[in-house]
């Protein structure tokens, strides 16, 4: 597979970059014109220590599980936005303009990322979230209907 290695190296470099660009999936919007369909935000929370403690092989396995799960939602035409991952560091601005470091390192429920899906009801969206690999790694998924302004 000599001819293919260049592409594999390219792919490794690009993975991080491409996940930054949110993709609005117009195709899916066209395919599912049902008025009953709503958009939902999935918010992923977990202890940042879980991912930090993973070996490269474990990380790769975890990545595949995530891709299979999101790929499955996308295959139904129900992925509205692939969302993004969030870095662990950050600031919180509090009243009186007090800025504190995000207390993320200590918390067991730090927001680590999000995606946006389309479903007919909160129940259906919740069913979708039950497949999320974060559940077997100690984390949780918050499912919230989006109210379009």
């Amino acid at each position, binding site marked *: 597979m000599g001819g293919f290695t260049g592409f594999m190296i390219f792919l490794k470099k690009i993975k991080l970059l491409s996940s930054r660009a949110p993709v609005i*999936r117009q195709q899916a919007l066209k395919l599912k014109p049902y008025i009953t369909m709503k958009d939902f935000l999935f918010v992923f929370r977990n202890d940042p220590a879980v991912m930090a403690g993973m070996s490269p092989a474990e990380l790769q396995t975890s990545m*595949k599980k995530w891709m299979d799960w999101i790929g499955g939602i996308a*295959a*139904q035409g129900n992925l509205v936005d692939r969302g993004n991952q969030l870095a662990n560091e950050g600031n919180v601005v509090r009243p009186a303009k007090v800025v504190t470091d995000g207390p993320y390192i200590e918390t067991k429920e730090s927001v680590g990322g999000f995606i946006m899906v389309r479903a007919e009801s909160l129940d259906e969206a919740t069913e979708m979230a039950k497949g999320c690999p974060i559940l077997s790694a100690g984390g949780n998924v918050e499912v919230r209907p989006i109210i379009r302004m």
Partner: protein
Amino acid sequence: MENQELIPHLFRTEYRKITAVLGKTFGLEHIEIAQDIASDTFLLASEMWAIKGAPDNPVAWLYTVARNKTLDYLRRDKLFKEKVSGQLVRNNPVDDEIDIDLSARNITDSQLQMMFAICHPSLPVESQIGLALNVLCGFGINEIASAFLTNKETINKRLYRAREKLRAEQVKMEFPDETEIELRLEAVLKTLYLLFNEGFYSAGKDVTLRKDVCIEAMWLTKMLTENPGTDRPPVNALLALMCFHASRFEARTNPEGETVLYQDQDDSLWDAALISRGECYLNRASVGRQLSRYHLEAAIGYWHTIKADTPEKWEHILQYYNQLLILEYSPIAALNRTYALAKARSKADAIREAEKLNLAENHLYHSLLGELYLGIDDVKALEYFNAALGLAKSRADRLLLVEKIRKVGEVG
């Protein structure tokens, strides 16, 4: 080369050049006149060369004849000359003698500009493909109709409306500016991709014609890779994808013209030279920071050029399909992803995912489920194959399904 081979060969390579250069000379609104002169040139060639034999430099002969025919036309049709020469004089203010610039540079530029004009966003995509086949590939109305599985009237109307639209929108033959080129190039790539698919997946029975459509799409894409302004990563990725698919052309139909499915193909018929050219283009595509759907589809195509049915191969294919779907949904990608899931994981996993797909009106959805249930529940498999047969339209698809149903019957 004998005349009967030489003329079709030259027609393939030179028709679009002459049409593009004359189209640029006259302006896109007179594209039919450019096409007529190019066609007349080849007509004269076939008559003359049959009697006298081909000239020493056939290409130069064609260009000379095309130039003379153009000047004749301008002399005959005063009105047209006045309309067109105004523009020509603007283009060549020094020379008042009309010149037809058949330099290599202008030939290449004109063809690329023609490509951008034809793939103008104001045209529906099937019109873009029709025009590309007609103007850039020199396909006649009959050939286009049979490639699209429709009749001559429909194609005639479609091309007529498309030309009218180009006039109404005053589309010019020019390179889009730097700010626009990415979006315009995207439209061109989409059309070339669909043009290739038209040849590759069409249910039309004429295998030679379908192959010609694919080859033309590849030529046009290759031309984009040869120009510095358009030699961008997604273009190379698209060409790689085409090479990988086209490498199976000989293996995918049997001598009776029936479809041979991927897993049943004789891989000694796969074209190794095309595969390695595909690898080369895929590597050239692997720069920058843009991962297009063509990159992912080319990578899927690459893994299909490896016959051995390893879990590694299907794991890669599955992950590329996941990424492709996340980037852009399509029913066919959803179905193929589910097939890859069965190969990489298990049929049970794939059945669970397949049932969520909401594609019950698609015959391929039922064939996929039939395939997945084979060996697990043959009664169900048979039900799905029969449902697929009820929905399948093309003869080739129906033949495949009848064969599958027969095989399930044998086992049961």
